[in-house]
């Protein structure tokens, strides 16, 4: 049981890294980017391809995944995302679903529809037992990396100048602009960071979530749950939401595999109805 809990935590950690970028873009520009998973997929494919074709070692493939996704993020933000900021949520949703569809079909065309696998270095394979709990080496590695990321993100968000400007802009973009904070540039940077994190998460998650062209569609709902449940005004909200989701999903699939993801969706609907502004959202007057 504790092993499952451990797996759930690892899974939740990856979900957090995947989803936190989305929560900041959503909070900052009030932009609903359902295509977030496409950046994760990009990161995943870049890592796999780099390892298989170029012989890049596993550890080096992770920053590559981050960079590639961040770079594509910057370019797309400039070219096509920016005109969308002022439009309605519905338009934004349609637009980003369009991007998802293109990414899914495009990847299928380029890479084929087969599952991708990550060849882990030997020191990350297998599992060991501590006090009767089976601990996968790779999962431990994931938890360590993602935990480190979460802590540094939290630190960056609350302690640095960048973070305080970002929080100001999330709270009220117009006031922040008035104070001379370059909100647009801030957003471009954050968008890139969010995409990069998604890319990294995509690469890290291959072992846990699989990777094929339908990835952005399959996991779209998961990212959205992280964001809508966790709220968009902090790092801790999405973090706890992701953990809750990861653990609930793993336990649910283990205990009652026949109903699959049912639990998760039901959980989301219930949470959205009872707490429409997120589980940890501050109450605004």
């Amino acid at each position, binding site marked *: 049981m504790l092993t499952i809990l451990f797996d759930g935590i690892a899974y939740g950690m990856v979900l957090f890294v995947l989803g936190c970028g989305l929560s900041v873009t959503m909070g900052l520009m009030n932009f609903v980017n359902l295509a977030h998973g496409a950046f994760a997929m990009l990161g995943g494919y870049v890592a796999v391809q780099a390892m298989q074709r170029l012989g890049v070692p596993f550890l080096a493939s992770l920053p590559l995944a981050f960079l590639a996704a961040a770079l594509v993020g910057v370019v797309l933000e400039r070219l096509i995302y920016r005109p969308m900021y002022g439009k309605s949520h519905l338009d934004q949703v349609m637009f980003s*679903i369009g991007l*998802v569809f293109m990414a899914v*079909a495009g990847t299928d065309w380029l890479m084929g529809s087969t599952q991708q696998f990550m060849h882990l270095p030997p020191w990350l394979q297998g599992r060991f037992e501590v006090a009767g709990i089976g601990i996968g080496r790779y999962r431990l590695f994931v938890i360590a990396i993602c935990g480190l990321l979460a802590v540094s993100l939290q630190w960056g968000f609350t302690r640095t100048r960048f973070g305080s400007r970002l929080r100001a802009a999330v709270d009220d973009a117009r006031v922040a602009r008035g104070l001379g904070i370059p909100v647009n540039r801030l957003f471009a940077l954050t968008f890139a960071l969010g995409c990069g994190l998604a890319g990294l998460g995509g690469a890290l998650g291959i072992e846990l979530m699989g990777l094929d062209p339908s990835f952005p569609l399959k996991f779209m709902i998961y990212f959205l749950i992280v964001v809508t449940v966790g709220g968009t005004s902090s790092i801790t909200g999405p973090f706890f939401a992701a953990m809750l989701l990861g653990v609930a999903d793993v336990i649910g699939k283990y205990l009652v595999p026949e109903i699959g993801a049912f639990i998760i969706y039901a959980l989301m*609907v219930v949470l959205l*109805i009872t707490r429409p502004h997120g589980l940890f959202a501050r109450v605004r007057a």
Partner: protein
Amino acid sequence: MRAETFESRVRQALHAGRRWHPAEIAFWCLAFAAFLLFPSQLLLLNEIAILALFALSLDLILGYAGIVSLGHAAFLGTGAYAAGLFAKHVGGDPLAGLAAGMAAAGLLGLVTSPLVLRGTDLTRLMITLGVALILYELANSLGWLTGGADGLQGVVMGPVLGLFDFDIFGRTAYLYSLCVLFTLFLVARRVVHSPFGLSLRAIRDNPLRASASGVPNARRLAAAYTIAATYAGAAGALLAQTTQFVSLDVLDFHRSADLMLVLIIGGAGYLYGGLIGAIAFKLLQDAIATFTPQYWMFWIGLFLVLFVLGGREIIHGGVKAVAGRLAGIGRGAAR
């Protein structure tokens, strides 16, 4: 005396909104004439009619009541499975099955309507999406009932009205679907021009003012949502009956997303948007399928992106111009 004439002016002005435009009459004449004009394309025409009905359903809540939904496939799927199961276990009469599909979807709409009454567009999008996903998972896991991933086999349909058997060319199918579409369209047309329809537009335009004008917003939206669900259920039932098969695909996310594209192409809030959009969508799909059958999803994505980025205005300008010309021809013929 002046008051008398003014009242008749008011009456006429209120009547103007629901008067039949010559272009509308031309549209429906063409739809029925298509049966004779394109005898080899009846299966495609049948698909168009069903998609049009599905889009009409979304238009009722999106275009008139302003409720966004990313999970309209939930109702399509419910209608399809209900009609399929009805045919399999109860009887093969199409109209009874249609009623079963509509009732099941309507019930689901009624039950889930409280979920979409509150919250922002974003929460509505998420909740509708969530409900559709739940149903997909349900249909997938209840294999003993739905056939799971293999689909519902053994749907055998009797003749429509006991007279017209379904055939492999889609003759009966198209006429049956078109008649259902036309009937439900007439009902919808009536509804949107009624006091009820007017109150939906009021809520869409300004919920605060609507409630200050005595409109019970929540109840009206729930009613509209239920009606729309019933319509989508009818589309699902037609789909199940004319293909004599139901697969999980009817509940798939892409159904809901495609539907949005249909309405984006045709425009929402004047009833014909869904119909015109359905024609354009299916013809496009058919055309693209002839040279790149696999990557339809890519194209649909591209269209979505381009439409939202600014192509919409261009298309609608074009549609209006064509409609105007058709109207001109219609008027000329009437004279």
